[in-house]
């Protein structure tokens, strides 16, 4: 579990995070939801240690991270895996070398054979067992995200952070990436934090959603609760999604017929 208490962060006097407190639960996909410029990525960067908050504290499973000794911070960092928005693969290394890199650096006690096995296992887990020898420039955006996930889980991380994992991907690939993150979270019982503004992800994997608006946390709950939320900013955000607007319109026009429409689709009769 990750606890964030009263985090504040400003840039040149402009407050970006205004006293955010929240909890990211273990074994769940925790979504940081919000529009552009609401401070989601800044909060994520504060949590993973790429930025230092002005005020507030962050605790990983009871161990304070902010302002703690460097050794303790390093120890926590080594339990963190992160999937970056642009994947951030090392472009001078092959896919397999990218996945092996954190093992080489963080677990020197592992033998080369053990490392190779682990790399193969991780690549297999993300469905890229045959792409090990390819360079990052030779693979698609979706594959890069998968390699990023494999690299993040290779050192058996306890916390997985994903910064907009669906950006630049087509809807079908986005869903596959979401499903993969969801499966990995439950399979290994890790704490996953996903920054997103994608309503598809909310509906697909939003087990615990935290909504940010103008640097403040305005709402948190589950995907089942979000459609009934009464916070105006959250409702504006949700219903700015074309897909949700269309679904709502169809629902109104057909007087609640969207469920039947979806059922028809699932049974092979077309639909959303």
């Amino acid at each position: 579990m990750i606890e964030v208490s009263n985090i504040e962060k400003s840039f040149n006097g402009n407050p970006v995070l205004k006293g955010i407190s929240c909890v990211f639960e273990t074994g769940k996909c925790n979504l940081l939801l919000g529009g552009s410029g609401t401070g989601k990525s800044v909060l994520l960067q504060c949590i993973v240690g790429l930025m230092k908050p002005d005020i507030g504290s962050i605790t990983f499973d009871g161990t304070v991270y902010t302002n703690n000794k460097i050794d303790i911070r390093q120890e926590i960092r080594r339990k963190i895996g992160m999937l970056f928005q642009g994947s951030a693969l090392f472009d001078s290394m092959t896919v397999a070398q990218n996945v092996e890199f954190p093992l080489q650096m963080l677990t020197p006690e592992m033998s080369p054979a053990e490392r190779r096995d682990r790399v193969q296992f991780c690549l297999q887990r993300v469905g890229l067992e045959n792409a090990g020898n390819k360079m990052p420039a030779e693979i698609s955006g979706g594959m890069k995200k998968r390699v990023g996930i494999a690299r993040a889980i290779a050192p058996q991380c306890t916390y997985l952070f994903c910064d907009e994992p669906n950006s630049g991907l087509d809807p079908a690939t986005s869903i596959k990436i979401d499903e993969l993150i969801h499966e990995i979270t439950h399979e290994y019982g890790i704490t996953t934090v996903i920054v997103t503004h994608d309503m598809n992800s909310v509906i697909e994997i939003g087990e615990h959603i935290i909504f940010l608006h103008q640097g403040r946390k305005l709402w948190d709950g589950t995907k089942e609760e979000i459609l009934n939320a009464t916070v105006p900013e959250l409702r504006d955000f949700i219903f700015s999604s074309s897909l949700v607007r269309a679904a709502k319109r169809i629902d109104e026009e057909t007087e609640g017929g969207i469920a039947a429409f979806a059922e028809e689709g699932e049974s092979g009769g077309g639909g959303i």
Partner: protein
Amino acid sequence: MLKTLGSFVLFLRGMVTRTERFSVLWTRTIDEAILIGVDSVVIVSIVSAFIGAVTCVQIAYNLTNPLIPQSTIGYMVREMTILELAPTITSIVLAGKVGSSIAGGLGTMRITEQVSALEVMGINSTSYLVLPRILAALLMFPLLVIMAMLLSILGGYLAGTLTGAMTQQDYVEGIREDFIPYNIVFALIKAVVFAFLVSGISSFKGYFTTGGALEVGAASTGAVTNSIIAILIADFALAALLL
């Protein structure tokens, strides 16, 4: 200016405070030494050989007084090569080739979040990315300068004898005349200082790149121009201090 200097000092301190394992550092340094040194052999060879040749021909052209022996040409080529041309011109060439490559490489890693990826893994990115580059430059610049000295003197010899400006015997006599071994030491000290300036400034410029592709280009350009200015200032300071 002072703020930048302070940032540079902090950047260098961060690089050595929490270093990676020796085996990692060694492997990375050797990789960088190949990129900085081995890959620069051709350009340094061409530049130094031609500079030696041109220096010899031009000195011969200016030495018209029959009272000055022809061996002076070889002597002057040697002195100019060892004291100035080999260390300084080689370092300026390397500032263009190596400096832009270091700044461009680190800048690209920065804007594509590869540096952040290292940091998130708990790896000291300056120690992993910058320290090996600086060590490799400190190792390879003096070797390239020694090679440049030899090729420059050889270029002068070929140019002098092939154009008939002087005899082979006169050139060799001039090369051996009043040789001061300290000059070689001085040239190597210059090479080490220039190596540190080029690799340090270029790494600093690249590491702190923000923005996109345009800024990476600007960082590379800045790295080259700042390195060259730093080389020229250091060249004067070292000459004033050590000669």
